[in-house]
């Protein structure tokens, strides 16, 4: 209990955010929007990591270190994913993931 906010509030919000991100990642028709959904999911993970760090083990650094790692992963994922999308768009003039059904461009 941390000044009146119980842990499960944070976990519920993170769960809702994760499910919204999942919906975005699976249901959007635009590849960039799919990546936005993935970013939302990573943020939900970060909220969980920091919430457990703060409530359960603030003396340790595991939650913090892995949050930092998720930051890096998110940045690298966005960079590579968007570069791929730009490249695909340049070759096919489309960023609808459903239309990309060929192995070669």
């Amino acid at each position, binding site marked *: 209990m941390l000044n009146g906010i119980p842990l499960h509030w944070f976990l519920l919000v993170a769960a809702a955010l994760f499910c919204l991100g999942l919906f975005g990642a699976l249901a959007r028709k635009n590849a960039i*929007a799919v990546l936005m959904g993935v970013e939302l999911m990573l943020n939900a993970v970060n909220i969980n990591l920091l919430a457990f760090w703060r*409530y359960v083990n603030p003396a340790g650094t595991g939650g913090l270190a892995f949050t930092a790692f998720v930051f890096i992963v998110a940045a690298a994922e966005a960079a590579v994913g968007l570069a791929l999308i730009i490249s695909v768009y340049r070759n096919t003039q489309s960023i609808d993931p459903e239309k990309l059904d060929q192995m070669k*461009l």
Partner: protein
Amino acid sequence: MEVSQIVFLILTVTLLGAAALVVTTKNLFHAALYLIVSFFSVAGMYVLLEAGFFAAAQLLVYIGAISILFIFAVMLTRGTALITPLNSQAGAVGVMSAIMFAILAVFLWPAPIRLQEVILGGFRLLRGGTYGGEPWQFVPNNADTAAVVNNATLRLGAALGDFAQYGALLLLSGALLLVGVIGSIWVARERKIADTRADRSEAAADARHEAQLESEAEAREAAALPAGAHAASVEGQH
């Protein structure tokens, strides 16, 4: 209601509202802006969790860097007007996400079912332990905890440099970033026109086509030649 609870609820509403708009808005630039709003609310959540360093890092990394990448990508891939923002499986995906959230909510809500204890107890039983017991031991909210939380960034820094703790993680993340950036530069770079695969295959097809035309023409010439020669010889006979 305490002040922190009110702040939490406001942040929750903005966060989930903005996230819902991110996944449904048709205009991608607006979706990127809503994404920024949700990042900002997540930074507020970090402040409530007393991780100030990560709140600022959220601003720096997510809003200052990743959102900019997203907006640049949106600008670079224009001309793809969307009639519908969602694909054909959207309904099924929505139902699945809702079910998933319902399951998570049931698990996470502490009373009256306390399913988390059931599940964790079940895991313990599977691993040969005993059923029951508190799943998480919360730390008390006293001066010691406050001091520990306050110098968390310093301890994180010490842990990141130490191979006994997270030094390997630091180097791994450095390598990941490096590889990611090199890969993206390689993929996104504009090459000379004959260098892209599409152009290369096109050029190859062109070359094949030309070769075929050429050989056909040669064959025709070759076929025409004896006839001509014959005609010439006939003419010579006259």
